[in-house]
């Protein structure tokens, strides 16, 4: 069953269209991540779903109910904010129960829900403290708890981990995933962090300029990006791109190289014309094994960045800056000759005109 459905949503701030004819439907129990650079409209979309922003056009359904004009509190949603947004003068318990008191729930029920949420999030010892006396991680737990007690079907997360340091972020990320597995609620999660997106999501919606660029599972997004923007956005370091000339016979010409694209899955068979040939740094094969691959060139390492678990190598191929990510134990130094191999099976090819995957 569809949990949240957005139909032809428009949002204008003055003359600026922030969201353009946006359609999105989210299954019950699904974890959807809205991913994009800042200013792409992802937080705006979340605020529209929450009812914190009025839409200019279109409709929003939650659990089959048209909530386009409903108050935030009547939509059956809970929301977790980046800055936690805890009420500073209330205790943790007060924060958790504020919404329930506004909804005039009977006292025993409030007690019970707060106790349950506190137990799930393991914040029972903190209930009588004020937010000021909590650490960042604890505050975020309380913020999640505030959404939890509302006993709603849809959770909205607005960059909930951005204010935390890297270690805590990783911890809470796992916790949110565990929470989702346990509760089975629909969750819509906004972030600009692709690691969070890849690890948490059932599906990722990559947004740009108020439009969804691709809506698919993490695996699909990573391996088969729908266009050059998505390909460039996902992956670190970013995908390498060559300008090339594709031919109907399933080969491609890149500078002085002619490559047979054997193994590449074309969307509609081989194409003819100028294309971008994209290749992820981590799929590069180095050394003698490279000779087995359809695309194999010699290069010289410019800069080597050892990172412990991996090594990044910067080089130039056909006049283009080229990044390689390889084993952390690879002993490469600047100036060393390299044998670089690429397998078309892992490549992504985009039309130069439309920038769509071919």
């Amino acid at each position, binding site marked *: 069953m569809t949990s949240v459905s957005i139909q032809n949503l428009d949002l204008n701030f003055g003359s600026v269209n922030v969201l353009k004819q946006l359609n999105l439907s989210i299954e019950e129990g699904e974890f959807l991540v809205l991913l994009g650079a800042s200013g792409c409209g992802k937080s705006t979309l979340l605020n529209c779903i929450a009812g914190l922003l009025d839409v200019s056009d279109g409709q929003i359904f939650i659990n089959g109910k048209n909530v386009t004009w409903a108050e935030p509190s009547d939509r059956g949603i809970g*929301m977790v*904010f980046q*800055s936690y947004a805890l*009420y500073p003068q209330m205790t943790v318990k007060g924060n958790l129960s504020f919404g329930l008191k*506004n909804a005039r729930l009977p006292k025993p029920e409030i007690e019970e829900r707060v106790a349950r949420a506190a137990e799930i999030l393991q914040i029972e010892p903190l209930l009588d403290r004020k937010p000021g006396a909590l650490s960042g991680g604890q505050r975020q737990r309380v913020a999640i708890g505030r959404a939890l007690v509302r006993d709603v079907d849809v959770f909205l997360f607005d960059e909930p981990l951005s204010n935390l340091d890297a270690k805590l972020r990783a911890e809470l990320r796992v916790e949110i995933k565990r929470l989702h597995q346990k509760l089975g609620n629909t969750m819509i999660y906004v972030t600009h962090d692709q690691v969070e997106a890849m690890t948490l999501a059932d599906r990722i919606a990559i947004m740009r300029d108020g439009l969804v660029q691709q809506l698919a599972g993490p695996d699909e997004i990573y391996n088969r990006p729908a266009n050059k923007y998505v390909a460039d956005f996902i992956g670190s370091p970013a995908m390498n791109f060559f300008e090339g000339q594709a031919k109907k016979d399933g080969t491609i010409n890149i500078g002085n190289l002619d490559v047979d694209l054997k193994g590449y899955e074309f969307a509609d068979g081989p194409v003819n014309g100028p294309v971008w040939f994209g290749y992820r740094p981590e799929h590069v094969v180095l050394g003698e094994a490279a000779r087995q691959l359809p695309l194999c060139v010699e290069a010289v390492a410019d800069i080597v960045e050892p990172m412990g678990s991996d090594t990044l190598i910067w080089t130039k191929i056909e006049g283009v800056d080229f990044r390689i990510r390889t084993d952390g134990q690879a002993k490469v130094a600047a100036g060393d000759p390299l044998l670089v191999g690429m397998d078309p099976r892992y490549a992504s090819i985009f039309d130069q005109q439309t920038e769509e995957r071919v």
Partner: protein
Amino acid sequence: MANNSINIAATAVSGPSGPKPRPLLSPRNIMIYSTLFIVCMYYALPLYVMIVTSLKGMPEIRLGNIFAPPVEITFQPWVKAWAEACTGLDCSGLSKGFWNSVKILIPSAALSILIASINGYALANWKFKGSEVFFTILIFGAFVPYQVIIYPIVIILRELGLFGKLPGLVLVHVIFGMPILTLLFRNYFTSLPEELFKAARVDGAGFWGIYFRIMVPMSLPIFVVALILQVTGIWNDFLFGVIYTKPENYPMTVQLNNIVNSVQGVKEYNVNMAATMLTGIVPLIIYFASGKLFVRGIAAGAVKG
């Protein structure tokens, strides 16, 4: 290697080492502190003169100089200023003006802060079409000379039956306090994280719920700032008091001016200064007690919206 570091250590002993000496009595310091001392003397002098004059008897004032400390301290001038000084035929002292000022101050300050804080909250969090336009008019209104508006307000108050009465003056203070206070609260509420407001809406709180349950408890400091601003401002007002009240309701400043600048009778400078001190003492206590908050209040007027 080891040899080298020993050499460096050896040369360091003879050269500059440890904290750089900073003599307390450098020419620069002497200049700064002596200038500041003179400046402070200058600013403090009038307060000092007020106090010593008010503690002297008239004969001593006629003989000595105004800066000399009193030879014989007397509190008679204070008693007289409070209870016996005359304005025209009425010789009941400043006490009446004091209580009038209190009666004006309390409702004016409370009402103006309540209204302005709600205005500021609506402007910061619940913008509606035209709200910014009204706010801009209000802020520009703060620059309109009072003289342009005072007479029409006389007419309005007369129509409302409030002219010459305390509620009328309270209304005037609420009106003229509104621009600066609304600006103060609007800027403060705008500076609060917007997500807090959003969270409260998701929690089902409405306009008044968010104001009373979330915003007010979070904003006590700014309420104190507004209170300081209003208490000193209203207490020190002269123009509105003299225009919109009748003599029996005159605030303390108006009465003070009438006592000191009355032409009849022999000038009693010690009583005058005691009366002046009495009038100045309320804002001074607030000023010295509030410290940084007072500065914050007056600086708020300098912050542009």
